């Protein structure tokens, strides 16, 4: 054995190597454990009588009622523990969900959804189909569009949202339209908008600052012009006289009549729009039900007496609107789908829906709560919602919603900036929509 002439280290190589090996081995072992996913349930989920265990929920930041009271009530009534309830910004949630589902991650059992995502994630096989027998009996049927795709139900709605018109009665008093009734047709709307436009205060403002905003605003005007986006086979049909009328109307509101706030092209969410209206910065908006709560809130310059609410006046029809209902769905890779389904049902129950109406100003998914006089007393705009049920209310959620929104927004933006004509914009958007429909439905 060779004799070392060097003074050896106080810690020997052998011991260091041994320690390093132990650390590496531990790391490898730790890496081997992780979320294990149970095999997905085949067939629509029906649920069980007394689910147990715990769940984790990923929601958007629309509602506070769940974390404020509903979770505690749910845990007490079912014994199921809600380990985690996270709220993310709606605009960022899609990518978060897509990443999670792509990784077959079971971190969250319940996720928030709406018409577009139910179609997209449902078609991708990432949401658990739910049996119709598991749905609450008094769920308002149109609300199911938010959680369904091609006949399959992927969730239960948590609130209904339909756009209605809100107006500032004080500003409208300057026009020849009765502020207590509001504009009943498009000519009255235009007349009121012109009278209300003074200085930096415009008669009408909307939120077209991003792809989703452009799509929903165009869809609304398309429906108001008597048009439709797709036929029964999801082939685009908006490139017609109705579509051209819709987009031309939008362009004229901005450039010809100058009653649309130019900032509409930069406003990216309905909350900013709501705040602008509540600050008396605009005369009329077409907005979601939360507008009422914000406009009667303590920071608002308006109150229940100075806000008007009614049906959106149509251009070629009496009225139409877009649907913004949201729901909860179950992650296909969840380890406790039965408990997740229990949460979905609880969120749609009369108890929670009453709070959603009274505390937050959204429309209920429960017919019993909708018909309850107490609901109408606490949320007068419910009357208008009941009227919207007589008219077309659509959202057209499809697996290609995100992609199409981007393409449509490019064309509509160009038309709004008068770089191309509405006809050219619609042709380009329609061609793209047809390609997407074929790609996703025919493969």
């Amino acid at each position: 054995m060779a004799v070392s002439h060097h003074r050896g280290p106080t810690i020997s190589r052998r011991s260091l190597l041994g320690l390093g090996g132990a650390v590496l081995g531990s790391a490898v072992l730790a890496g081997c454990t992780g979320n294990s996913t149970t095999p997905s349930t085949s067939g629509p989920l029906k649920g069980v009588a007394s689910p147990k265990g715990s769940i984790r929920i990923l929601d958007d930041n629309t509602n506070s009622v769940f974390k404020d009271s509903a979770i505690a009530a749910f845990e007490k009534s079912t014994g199921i523990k809600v380990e985690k309830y996270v709220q993310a910004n709606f605009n960022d949630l899609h990518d978060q969900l897509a990443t999670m589902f792509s990784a077959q991650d079971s971190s969250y059992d319940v996720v928030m959804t709406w018409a577009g995502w139910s179609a997209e994630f449902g078609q991708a096989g990432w949401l658990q189909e739910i049996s119709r027998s598991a749905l609450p009996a008094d769920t308002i049927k149109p609300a199911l569009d938010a959680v369904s795709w091609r006949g399959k139900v992927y969730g239960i709605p948590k609130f209904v949202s339909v756009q209605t018109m809100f107006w500032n009665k004080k500003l409208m008093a300057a026009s020849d339209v009765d502020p207590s009734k509001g504009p009943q047709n498009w000519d009255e709307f235009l007349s009121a908008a012109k009278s209300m436009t003074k200085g930096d205060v415009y008669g009408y403002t909307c939120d077209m600052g991003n792809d989703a905003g452009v799509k929903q605003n165009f869809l609304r005007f398309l429906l108001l012009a008597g048009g439709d986006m797709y036929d029964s086979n999801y082939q685009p049909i908006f490139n017609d006289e109705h579509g051209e009328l819709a987009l031309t109307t939008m362009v004229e509101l901005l450039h010809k009549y100058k009653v649309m706030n130019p900032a509409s092209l930069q406003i990216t969410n309905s909350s900013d729009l709501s705040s602008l209206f509540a600050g008396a910065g605009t005369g009329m908006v077409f907005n979601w039900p939360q507008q009422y709560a914000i406009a009667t809130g303590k920071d608002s310059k308006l109150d229940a007496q100075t806000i008007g609410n009614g049906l959106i006046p149509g251009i070629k029809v009496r009225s139409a609107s877009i649907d913004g209902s949201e729901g909860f769905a179950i992650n296909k890779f969840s380890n406790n789908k039965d408990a997740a389904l229990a949460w979905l049902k609880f969120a749609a129950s009369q108890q929670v829906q009453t709070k959603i109406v009274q505390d937050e100003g959204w429309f209920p998914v429960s017919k019993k709560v909708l018909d309850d006089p107490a609901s109408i007393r606490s949320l007068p705009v419910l009357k208008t919602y009941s009227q919207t049920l007589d008219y077309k209310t659509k959202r057209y959620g499809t697996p290609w919603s995100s992609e199409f929104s981007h393409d449509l927004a490019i064309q509509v933006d160009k038309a709004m900036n008068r770089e191309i004509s509405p006809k050219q914009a619609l042709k380009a958007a329609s061609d793209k929509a047809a390609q997407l429909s074929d790609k996703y439905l025919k493969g």
Partner: protein
Amino acid sequence: MSTFATPKAVRGGQERGDRNFRVLIILPAVSLIGLLMAYPMGYAVYLSLVRWNDKISPDHPFVGLDNYKQLIEDDEFRSALMTTLYISGPTVVLGVGLALGFALLLNRPFWGRTAGRVILLVPWAIPPVVAGIIWKLIFAGSGGAANFIARGLGLTDHNIQFLASSTSAIVILILVEVWKWTPFLALLFIAALQNVPGNLYKAALIDGAGPWKTFWRVTLPNIRGTVMFEVIIQSLFSIKVFDTIYILSGGSGGPAGSTTTINFLAYLVSFSRLERGYGAAMAISILILVLLVAGLWILLFSIPGRRPGAKAMRSARIGSHSHSGRDLA
């Protein structure tokens, strides 16, 4: 074997042993770093060779280079590439130019120089998302500071929608990127300037060189390496820009797709459209582009005989005793 081996043999054996041990000790760290880089990159390459869109089919067939062929034919990708070049060019020129200007200024002694250097760092210290939000508020269509100033100065009588027009949106994007990165680049220049030998400036002064000639013949050649480095990294930053676009455009790359660069398009394709194979091909193409751009700049800066003031630099280094100024001409 003799217990008393020759000292040289023993030393050689122990040196090899020490070397092996050193390699072994750093192997876990290197392996981890390699894994963190190699695995994602390898997986991205694999993804780029398959067709993967769960909304269409759960199958992921191998398609070879089809995704790359699609890129070449894709108008949207070509448009995004042009947008990237429109943004990258001015960002590099302005960014590096301004950084050098600030560095020259802050390298001179003056009262408040330290405070100036600290203030210069503020844009770089602000997180990119926060910076994007700040600028979005500045250029808000109603109530933003930019409109307030423009109307106050009488430049306009109505609010300008800066972020609703393609041209102004791109200009603002370039402005924000230059604002964000100039402090970092200026810091590097300051460090480089402080390493320029002072006797070169003295020699230049003695030879009667003016400020511009001194800059061109003394300063610039001595910080050439830093200039090359900064041009490369600013090019890379501007090709990869994402957070600023996301915040300013509300996540859409608009208006009208005008701020959709290739990196942003790769994000839209991968996460919004869930086309993972095609998105991966796009990402790999961006990597290749970045390497090509870096290589091109290195080549340009390495061309012999094109270094400004090289001859003068050599004369000055030798310690020119000539006062004719010929060597600085």
